[in-house]
């Protein structure tokens, strides 16, 4: 029993770790889409952030500089997306796809030009990574029944970025629902005409939403290459951006539900890592490929079965044209 309990704790611990970039990206998508700008480019921005963070951290030895540059790089990509979608009223899905493809090509190209090793970055040394933090008293309390292991295994031992992410969730929620800016941001996603009539710039509001999304993607990318992993590997996002998008849709564009969906996806992911090579009762050993596709299959089932028809922000994906 204790063994099973420990297994569960370790899986839950991995869930928190894996969910960090997913939650950040999903919140990014949420901010963007609440202002009616579809963001398929989460994947590319995250990848760009991961590459920048790893490269700068490796070259300067400072993970903080890496994080800042990752955010700046993603802000640039977000500006590009905004320029295409808001200023030029281009197709938002196309712009996002283009960003994904550009970054998927550019990151390994630049990586190869800088490090000459197949497009990846070299492994990052200690100081150039976000290391796991041991919370005070974690070791001393480990012996306490039930609560001790929970504190030591589940709550303690994450990187700063993970703690920051979970602290950020209520902040994003507060920003969206309790501030004037959040109200306007949501309004611009539902009824931009009304916002325009009130004399508030639709374009500037949307730009700010897209930039917030960019900054969040930068942190998500940095968490991939400098906290979860210890170097940039080509295509290391491996569909996490799309998964975040699915979580956001599953969460009906609401922060709480979206984070729950992210945790669910991360849990399947943690579970698949644990299930590999394990022989289950009745089923026997499940082939690795089927375990790997678990999160994707679940996404489809959840979207089809439980969410039903989801209602996006009313103006989502529609460029705003001012009456002339």
């Amino acid at each position, binding site marked *: 029993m204790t063994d099973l309990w420990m297994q569960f704790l370790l899986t839950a611990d991995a869930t928190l770790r894996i969910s960090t970039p997913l939650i950040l990206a999903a919140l990014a998508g949420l901010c963007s889409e609440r202002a009616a700008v579809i963001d*398929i480019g989460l994947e590319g921005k995250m990848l760009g952030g991961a590459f920048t963070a790893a490269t700068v951290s490796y070259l300067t030895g400072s993970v903080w500089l890496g994080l800042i540059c990752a955010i700046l790089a993603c802000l640039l990509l977000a500006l*590009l997306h905004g*320029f*295409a*979608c808001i200023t*030029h*009223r*281009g*197709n*938002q*899905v*196309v*712009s996002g*796809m*283009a*960003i*994904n*493809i*550009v*970054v*998927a*090509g*550019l990151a*390994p*190209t*630049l990586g*190869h*030009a800088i490090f000459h090793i197949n*497009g990846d970055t070299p492994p990052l040394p200690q100081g150039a990574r976000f290391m796991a933090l041991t919370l005070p008293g974690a070791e001393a309390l480990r012996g306490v029944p039930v609560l001790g292991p929970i504190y030591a295994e589940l709550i303690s031992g994450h990187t700063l970025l993970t703690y920051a992410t979970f602290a950020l969730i209520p902040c994003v929620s507060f920003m969206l629902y309790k501030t004037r800016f959040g109200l306007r941001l949501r309004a611009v996603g539902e009824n931009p005409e009304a916002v325009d009539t009130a004399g508030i710039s639709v374009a500037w509001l949307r730009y700010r939403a897209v930039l917030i999304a960019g900054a969040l993607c930068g942190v998500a990318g940095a968490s991939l290459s400098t906290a979860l992993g210890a170097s940039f590997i*080509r295509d290391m996002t491996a*569909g996490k951006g*799309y998964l975040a*998008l*699915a979580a956001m*849709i599953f969460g009906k564009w609401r922060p709480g539900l979206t984070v729950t969906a992210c945790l669910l996806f991360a849990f399947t992911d943690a579970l698949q890592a644990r299930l590999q090579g394990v022989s289950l009762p009745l089923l026997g050993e499940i*082939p690795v*490929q*089927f375990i*790997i*596709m678990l999160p*994707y*299959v679940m*996404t*489809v089932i959840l*979207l*089809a079965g439980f*969410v*039903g*028809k*989801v209602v996006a922000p009313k103006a989502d994906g529609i460029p705003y*044209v001012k009456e002339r």
Partner: protein
Amino acid sequence: MAQSKLPGWVNAGLIPALNLLTAFVVSGLVILAMGQDPVKAFGYMVYGAFGYGEAIGYTLYYATNFIFTGLAVAVAFHCYLFNIGGEGQAYLGGLGIGLVCLYLGDLPFWAVLPLTVLGGALFGAAWAAIPAYLQARRGSHIVITTIMFNFIGSSVMTFLLVDWLKRPGSQLPETSPFPESAWMPKLHELAGALGIKMAHSPANLALLIALLCCVGVWLFIWHTRWGYEIRAVGRNPDAAVYSGISPARAIMLSMLLSGALAGLMGVNELMGEQHRVVINFTNGCGFVGIAIALMGRNHPAGIVLASLLMGALFQGGAELAFEMPAITRDMIWTIQGFVILFTGALEHLYRPQLERIFLRGEATA
């Protein structure tokens, strides 16, 4: 929005050309930032794509793949569906083609060919059917479901190639070679039979099948009732319902056709060149199809032109990576991404300026 009053040649020729040029200029800046000579780089690319007979053959061979996936995306697009799943549909279509070739490949070629075309189309359509059904009946976001089906398809194929279809005694995740009667005749072989000399290259009969598909799609979309229904639903689903069209049926129809077209990609890649099913043979062609459809304005003629351009980019990019080792093949993706960005999302970049230039003349006349 007011329809642009620009002359046709500006709309269909000058604007895409300017956008394309911008994409190449930006790519050139990236190459410059890497400390390489962009003019030399593009020189290698043009020579590598069109400079000699074999190069042209390779360009046509890549273009054939892109015609299939580009048509697939375009057909779905006419119904306003964003089929990002071309990659998975082409991959599974390849499975259908492979199974036919492996089990029935000993039949004479004239009998194998229609069976493989059928197999590829059926498997591709089947893989598109589930996202299509979920979109039509449950309102699940087709962009998300088709993306998920790419991942699922990739896992399924890896499983099949590693555990079930692997060539006995081989370590590689690939099937046994197809019997020779299931190989597509190469264009230079066909030309040779007619007494014409042509450079050796992997370009094969599948190019003609792709062109036939273009004609077929053109007839279907603009000259049949089903095509009309698809376009009507794409333009305005509410109005379509009022005229007695079922959006669900149009969605299913266009996605099944889309999947079938993507599934045919293997006819070129597997029967034409690989002669067996290999892992990841689609190599991103499904995604390139999105760019092709956008650049070609979802019209078969435009798709053929766009495919030629992308084929040239792929073949020229290979030459570039060979001649300038500092630039890897990944650069092709970067250039392609910029092409999608400037021809797709930023297609109106120069429109205001051009309208000023061309419509001012009109106003004074």
